[in-house]
C-alpha cells in the first residue's frame, strides 16, 4: 500500500468513526428539531387540517394573524405576564442570592426551602394554585380574612388571574435565578470586597460599587433567559385557567395550541408559532446587541 492510499484509508476510517459516535444522536436531533422546524415554516404558508389536500396560501396565514383580534389579545396577555414575571424573578433571584450567600445558622434550611419548589411540575403547581387561591375556600382568602381585608376572586377574576399565575411561576422558578446569581456572587474576587471594607465602605456601597458591576453580565443573561421562557407560557395556564376567565390568560402559545390541536388549523397554528419565534429572536438579539454596546459580556 502506498503512503497516499494509507492516508486516504485512515481518513475514511476517521470519518466513519466520527459519524458512528455522533450519528445516532444526530438522527434524533435533526429528525425532531431541524426537520420539523423547516416543515413548520412550510406549513405556515399553507392551509391544512391534516386530512384534505394542503393548499398553498403564501403569507395569508400571517396576514390573518395580524388582523386577528384574538391573537392580539394573546399578545397582550403574554406581554403582561412577561412584565410581571421577568423583573420579579430577576429581583427575587438577586435578593435571595445575596441573602443566602453567607454562613449563618439555618442557611441550609433556607436554601433548601427556596430551591425545592423548582422540582414541582406545571401540573402540580397548577393544582396547588387552584387550591391555595380558591375564592371559596383558599388559604389566600383566609389570610385576607384574618387581616380584615375583602376576599378576592384570584384565578376567577380576569384582572387577577395572570398575577396569580405569575406568583406561582415565581414560586417554582425563583430557584433558577437565585442559583445563577449565587454562582456569580461567589465569583466576585474577595480581595475587592475586603479592600472596600478596609476603605470604610458600608455593605450598601460595597454592593452597588463593587459587586453589582460584576453581576451585570449575569443579569443580562437571566433577563433574556427568563423572557424567552415567559413568552412561551403555556403549561401553567393549561393547568389553572385554560385561558380564562374571559380569555384573560390566553397566551400566544395557548392560542396556537388551540388553533393547531383543537380546531386543527395546522397552517395557522404554525404561522403563530413562527411569529412568536421571530419576536423571541428579535428581543434576544436586541438585548444582546444592547449589552455588547454597553460592554456587558453576557454571551
Amino acid at each position, binding site marked *: 500500500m502506498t503512503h497516499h492510499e494509507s492516508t486516504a484509508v485512515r481518513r475514511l476510517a476517521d470519518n466513519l468513526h466520527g459519524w458512528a459516535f455522533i450519528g445516532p444522536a444526530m438522527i434524533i436531533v435533526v429528525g425532531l428539531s431541524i426537520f420539523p422546524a423547516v416543515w413548520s415554516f412550510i406549513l405556515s404558508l399553507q392551509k391544512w387540517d391534516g386530512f384534505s389536500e394542503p393548499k398553498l396560501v403564501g403569507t395569508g396565514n400571517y396576514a390573518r394573524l395580524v388582523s386577528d383580534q384574538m391573537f392580539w389579545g394573546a399578545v397582550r396577555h403574554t406581554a403582561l405576564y412577561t412584565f410581571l414575571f421577568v423583573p420579579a424573578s430577576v429581583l427575587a433571584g438577586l435578593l435571595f442570592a445575596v441573602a443566602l450567600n453567607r454562613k449563618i445558622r439555618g442557611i441550609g434550611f433556607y436554601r433548601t426551602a427556596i430551591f425545592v419548589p423548582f*422540582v414541582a411540575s406545571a401540573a402540580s403547581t397548577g393544582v396547588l394554585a387552584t387550591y391555595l387561591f380558591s375564592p371559596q375556600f383558599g388559604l389566600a382568602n383566609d389570610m385576607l380574612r384574618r387581616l380584615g381585608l375583602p376576599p378576592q376572586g384570584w384565578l376567577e377574576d380576569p384582572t387577577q388571574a395572570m398575577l396569580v399565575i405569575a406568583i406561582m411561576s415565581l414560586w417554582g422558578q425563583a430557584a433558577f435565578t437565585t442559583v445563577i446569581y449565587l454562582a456569580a456572587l461567589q465569583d466576585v474576587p474577595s480581595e475587592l470586597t475586603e479592600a472596600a471594607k478596609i476603605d470604610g465602605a458600608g455593605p450598601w456601597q460595597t454592593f452597588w460599587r463593587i459587586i453589582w458591576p460584576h453581576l451585570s453580565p449575569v443579569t443580562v443573561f437571566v433577563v433574556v433567559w427568563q423572557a424567552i421562557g415567559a413568552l412561551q407560557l403555556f403549561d401553567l395556564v393549561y393547568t389553572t385557567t385554560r385561558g380564562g376567565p374571559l380569555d384573560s390568560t390566553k397566551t400566544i402559545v395557548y392560542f396556537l395550541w388551540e388553533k393547531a390541536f383543537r380546531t386543527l388549523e395546522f397552517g395557522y397554528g404554525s404561522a403563530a408559532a413562527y411569529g412568536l419565534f421571530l419576536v423571541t429572536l428579535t428581543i434576544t438579539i436586541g438585548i444582546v446587541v444592547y449589552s455588547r454596546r454597553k460592554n456587558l459580556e453576557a454571551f
Partner: protein
Amino acid sequence: MVAATLQPTPEQEVVGAPKMPRRRRRLPFSGWHFFLLPTALLFVVPFVQMVVASLSPAKELVQFPRPLLPSHLTLDGFQQLFSTTPALHWLLNSAIVALSAIVAQGILCSLAGYGFARLKFKGRNVSFFFILATIMIPTQVLMVPTYIVFARLGLLDGLGAAIVPWLAGAFGIFLMRQFFLSIPKEMEEAAALDGCSRLQIFFRVVLPLAKPALATLAIFTLLGSWNDLVWPLIAINNEANFTIQLGIANFQGTRRTQWDLLMAANVVATAPLIIFFLAAQRQFIATMTFSGVKG
C-alpha cells in the same frame, strides 16, 4: 449646591471622618434571619398544604374558614386515588419514560459529545453548528410537524410517543462535549498505545471519568421528562398510556371537587423528585447552574 455641603458624598465621608468602629447594638444572630425565615416558610407553605390536604377528610377541605388542622388524619385520598383511578399505572408509565430517557441520553449524548470533542472527521463543525442552532428553536414551532410525523409513523397514543423526543438532545450533547474538552487527553493516548480501539477507550477510560457530567445530565433529563406536560398532552389520548402529569392535569377536569384525591396524586407525583432533590441537592444545584451557564 447646598445639598452637597449638607450631605457629604460617601467619598468625602470616607476621606474625612476618622475611622471609628461603628457602634451598633448587635443582635445575638444575623439580621438576615428576619428576611430569610419568613421567605423560606412562604416557599414551603404550598408543599405543606399539599401534604396536609392529601391526609385530610375531603369535606373539611372545602370549608371556609378552614380549620388550621384537620380534625383527624386519613388515607382516604390515597386509597381513592389508587382504587378508582389508574394512578399507579400512570406512575409506572412516568417511571418508564424517565428511565428510558435517562439511559438513552446518557449513552447517545456522551457518544456524540465525545465525537465532537475528540474525533476529527468530515462535517463535524457543520453538525455541531446544527446542534447548537436547535437550542434556539422553541418547542412550539416543532409541535405540529412532530405530531404529524408521529401520526404517520403510528407512534401516537403509545408510551413510545412520550419517550422518543427524550432520547437525545442538544443540551446533553453540548454538556458532554464541554466536559470531555475539559479532561486531559493523556489517559486516552496511553490506552490507544496499549492497542485499545476507540470504542474501548470510550467505554473503559473516558466514561468512568464522566460521572459528574452524567449525573448532571441525568438530573436534567429526569426533571424534564418526569414533569413534561405539553408533549404528552398532544401525543397521548389513551388513558392507559397517560403519564402521571397528564393524569393530574386530566383530574382537574374530571375530579375537581375531590381535593383529597387531587392532593394525594400531587404528593405521589412530586415526592420522588423532592426525595431525589433532598438526597442530591448539590448535584441538582450544579445542574441548574449549568443549564444557565450554557448560554
